[in-house]
């Protein structure tokens, strides 16, 4: 009777495991060079950020002198948790996720795009729809983006409440998970109306992903603060300064910078302040989205 490979495999199981664990222990990296771990929530275009981020990474490595590791998660909560656990140094948050991270992990705001201080959500519906104002939403189906999105959920809901839109509309609303999905659901008449990020609306229409003959904007919210880069509690201020400066000095006149700005959908970066987000905090508490 000979030993067969599968049984042998099992016999070797213990050996394999020992080898694996030893290797795992041995690979425990010691004294890494200075590393900056960035995380960028893909509000705009995850695939593009994942697949085209190299130029940003090398620019930041040059400017900060640190090795830059960029992760692009698809899950907001994971980033908040990671920055709270010191697993991420600097992250790109939406306004609402920033507020959550500042409450739970004490993150500090660094910089943001100029447009982020003056951001809007758009309410869209079909071109031939009878909806022309927030009041007309009564009895209609409505779509938000991700539950954690500032421009896709929190602020639209806030302004809907402010305008006394029928509570049923908000309670029955569906969460599409992303702005793109909201736009498409409206265009394909899966819902009567929806709220989304203005920047993404512009991109989708200009790229032809969204047929402008099918949808129209019927309401634009007042301005609010949105996306911001923020650092974890206790991160060396030399690193955060170098990081901020790298963004602040981006200049559209410079060819390399112009390409980066285009990738980030930005024209200019400015410093961000925590107090600018107080209104957003209140909105989140009022809507029961934050404790």
């Amino acid at each position, binding site marked *: 009777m000979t030993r067969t490979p599968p049984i042998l495999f099992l016999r070797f199981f213990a050996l*394999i495991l020992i080898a694996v664990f030893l290797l795992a222990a041995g690979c425990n990296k010691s004294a890494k060079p200075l590393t900056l771990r960035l995380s960028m929530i893909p509000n705009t275009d995850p695939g593009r950020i994942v697949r085209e981020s190299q130029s940003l990474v090398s620019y930041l490595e040059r400017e900060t002198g640190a090795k830059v590791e960029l992760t692009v998660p698809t899950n907001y909560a994971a980033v908040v948790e990671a920055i709270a656990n010191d697993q991420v140094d600097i992250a790109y948050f939406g306004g609402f996720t920033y507020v959550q991270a500042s409450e739970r992990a004490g993150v500090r705001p660094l910089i943001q795009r100029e447009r982020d201080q003056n951001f809007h959500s758009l309410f869209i519906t079909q071109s031939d729809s009878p909806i022309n104002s927030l009041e007309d939403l009564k009895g209609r189906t409505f779509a938000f983006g991700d539950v954690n999105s500032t421009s896709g959920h929190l602020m639209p809901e806030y302004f809907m409440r402010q305008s006394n839109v029928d509570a049923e509309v908000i309670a029955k609303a569906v969460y599409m998970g992303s702005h793109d999905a909201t736009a498409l659901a409206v265009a394909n008449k899966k819902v009567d109306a929806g709220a989304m990020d203005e920047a993404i609306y512009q991109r989708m229409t200009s790229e032809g992903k969204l047929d402008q003959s099918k949808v129209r904007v019927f309401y634009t919210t007042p301005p609010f603060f949105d996306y911001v880069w923020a650092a974890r509690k206790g991160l060396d201020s030399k690193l955060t300064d170098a990081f901020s400066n790298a963004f602040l000095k981006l200049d559209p006149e410079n060819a390399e910078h112009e390409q980066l700005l285009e990738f980030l959908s930005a024209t200019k970066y400015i410093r961000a302040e925590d107090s600018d987000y107080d209104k957003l905090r209140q909105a989140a508490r009022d809507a029961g989205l934050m404790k």
Partner: protein
Amino acid sequence: MNEIARADYRGQHRATLRRTLIAAALVALIIFSWQMAEIRPAAFFAADSIAAVIDFLKGLFPPDLSTDFLRIVFVAAGRTVAIAIAGTLLSIIIGLPLGVIATSTLFRRGVLLAGERRGVSTFLLAGVSRAARALLGFLRAVPDLMWGLLFVVAVGLGSLAGALALAVSYAGVLGRVYADVFESVDARPLEALHATGATRSQVFVRAVWPQSKPAVIAYTLYSFECCMRAASVLGFIGAGGIGYEISLSMRLFRYDQVLTLIIAFILLLTATDAFSRYLRRRLRANAPQGTLAHERVNGLGSVLITGISLERVMNIAIAITAIAIVTGSFYASGFFDGSLMDATLLQRMGRFVGAMMPPEVSASFLRSLVEPLFQTIGISVMGTLIGMAIGALLALPATATLIFIEKDEAGKRSRTERAARRGIYTFARTVLSLLRSIPELVWVLMCIIAVGLGPFAGAVAIGLHTGGVLGKLYAETLEEAPENPLEALRSTGARRVQVLVWGIWPQARPMLVSYTVLRWETNLRVSTVLGLVGGGGLGQAIYNNIQLGFYTRVATLILVVYALVVTTDWIGDRLRERPAS
């Protein structure tokens, strides 16, 4: 005589009553589910839906086969395999000890405890054993994707979260199966060894393990296949691999990439199937015969006699390859950047669990769960019904014994008719295998395009996948119906339909019912996670509450899912024991 007749009558009466009650309950359940799952068949035929589906289908072709993208697919597939292997191994490491402890014949009852004095330690051991079994049940009841979502938040995005999710989830499955296998072995060797004064561990190693080894290996291989499937979809919630790429490409409207990824996914599963079939065949061909002692002598003998034979070299080579693959898998799953030995990993998981305590039980929150709970049940019932319909429709042409002409008729039919029948059969089988090889979560994304977000998309998605699974099982059951009664029927001149109705159906019915009920139990689990990608139900509530950081609510939701799954399993067991006759 009179007495018996009356009893008989009463029994019949009661049976009729029972049947009526069951039928009424079923009708009520279906109406209720129809409403909860927001079934709107008209949504399929709306012009916009059709246009959207056509757009989608057109977008699929031609698949993106550019070198750049193929590289992405290749890396993603590799990562999926790595997650599956690492997950399976970890699940064995966790599941096997738990399974041994949970084995009741070792710790709670049976020959080993027969003569023993019942002291405190016996009592304690029995308690630990029972606790292990309960733990396994819990690990198993919470769906793998839900574990994935929890680990993604607790340990960070990426393959590590995926591998850990599989490890925990399949440890529950394997541990339970192992315990069941250990319990079902022949008790006589145990008794004999016990009588010689062997300790419990000796009894296990010498009597229980040798008997259960083939079944343990077979189930472990099967679980590896399941892990591969699960690893592919775990990416949807951010755990890397093919699923992650599918969700990215879906968001980018790159349907041509979606098709490439789905093809890669199907190839991967086919390869896994083939691989584990190969292993199983080798295992069966070389199954150990005779006693343990005999085997040991033989093993020792072959080493002594042949020294280093070719076979041995081969085996060592295979072992080295296995070590390399496994090490590579752990490496690719992110275990080696210090995270496996990282003390903060446990600390982070502990912190996360701590943040979930105590589960929130405020009345207003519990009330808000009623609707998603009913929705989940509704989705699972409607999904199973849709699956039954699709399965039944495709099973008939996919049943070889029905569709092909009986031998004695061979000469009577024309060649074209035979070709047509072969064509129909192949078509039905292909559709069935396509339906079942695409996971429910991918179907949901496609159904959302057709009918919009919500429970209806979830129900249809479950229905499509279930249709593929049930269709195959139905067809196989029909094919395996014992031949003699059918032959008898045919000899009386019964036509094909009559053979089906009077010959095959009565013989196959118990199996058909049993498969369907089992599938419903699975579908309930699936419907709790569909919400993670937009299919409504409890999954949506879990996703939203995790995203908002309301972890105490997440804990409550997980307990609700656990209770729901346990209840369903219990109902399912009852239904299968006594199929409604």
